[in-house]
């Protein structure tokens, strides 16, 4: 189902629920995995995905058709995640200047619903040492296969800066793998 059709159906009150069902069917998994990779814990991801789609329900009628629907969804999800992670940092008395997500390491190892092998665990541990922006860009490029232009639309960052972030992330991950052989 084309995004434009979903948006059109949503604009009509009679077909609004149908459009929302189609939207959920199409995007709920993508958004869940994007959120999950950022916040690590399943329960947190579950809450956030619901929050994201509630926001989508409230604001989709005002959505500008000139933007891509999925980049808009990703943007809402990313903003929700960043807000959530900042609050989590504050709750754990971690300075907001500390840019890495190392405080999520415990969640990775002790939390349920991680069924990865040793290499997958190592990659996730490496990712948690990265600054938030680099982790975000790497996840979207590596796991979601998004293009720089698309990531640029989502994050509102220039393609050049994204390339630099990805390049640095790859370098640090490689270094992490070399150090933890």
């Amino acid at each position: 189902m084309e995004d434009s059709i979903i948006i059109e159906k949503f604009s009509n009150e009679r077909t609004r629920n149908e459009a929302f069902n189609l939207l959920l069917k199409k995007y709920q998994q993508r958004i869940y995995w994007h959120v999950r990779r950022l916040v690590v814990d399943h329960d947190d991801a579950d809450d956030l995905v619901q929050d994201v789609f509630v926001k989508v329900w409230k604001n989709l009628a005002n959505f500008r058709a000139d933007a891509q629907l999925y980049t808009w969804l990703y943007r809402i999800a990313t903003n929700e995640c960043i807000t959530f992670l900042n609050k989590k940092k504050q709750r754990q008395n971690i300075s907001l200047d500390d840019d890495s997500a190392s405080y999520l390491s415990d969640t990775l190892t002790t939390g349920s619903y991680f069924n990865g092998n040793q290499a997958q665990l190592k990659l996730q541990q490496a990712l948690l040492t990265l600054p938030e922006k680099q982790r975000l860009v790497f996840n979207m490029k590596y796991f979601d296969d998004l293009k720089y232009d698309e990531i640029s639309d989502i994050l509102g960052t220039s393609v050049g800066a994204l390339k630099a972030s990805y390049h640095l992330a790859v370098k640090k991950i490689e270094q992490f793998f070399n150090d933890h052989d």
Partner: protein
Amino acid sequence: MSTMDNKRNYQDDLAGIKGLPLNPKDTPFIVPSDYFNTLEAKIKRRVAIMSDAEASFEVPKQYFESLSDRIFARIENESYQNDEFVSQEEVKEKPFIIELRKEVPTSGFVAPPQYFDVLSEKIKAAVDPLNLEENTREISFPRKKKRYMSLWMRYAAAACITIGLGVYGFFQYQSNSFERKLKDIPENEIVSYLQYYGETGDAALLEAQFDGVVQMNQPTFSEKDIEAYLDYSI
């Protein structure tokens, strides 16, 4: 007048400072001897040199017309080279990423079984109150009027309750005020007062009110005392 005086005073003060010129407008800077005599000649020489230089350099025909095009071409070329450089950097990193993709194709996170089957329902349930809210808004009375009415009724109800409580409190206070005054007087004083000024039947009332404090029925004199008194008196 006063301004003049102030100025004079200011200058007098400065005059008292050692080494300061008498006229404050005199600067302490000096120039080489004959500087101003030779300055004009120097400037003319510089102008002549610059004119000679301009006359000696030539640019190709229509140089300036094509300059902007050539600058843009150069910028484009350099951007392309930069892109190539970035691509080369990526190619350089790629073997690691290619290997990593083979070894780690997915994140390793899993969702609970049948999670996505119930996720839609959860989201719809979360959205439902919003949906209802929107529908209610469409069929409701004009919001402003409804809010005004309910506010008016609230004020009226609050006023009724306040008046009711006030009246009840006033009568309660009135009925309790005598007892409250009595409470402030020590019991012994009340008893002794009533012993002197009491009437028939007060004793029983006092005994009931101040149980254990006084026992009015108890005889004050024993029978022997009374007999002895009568023997002595008669």
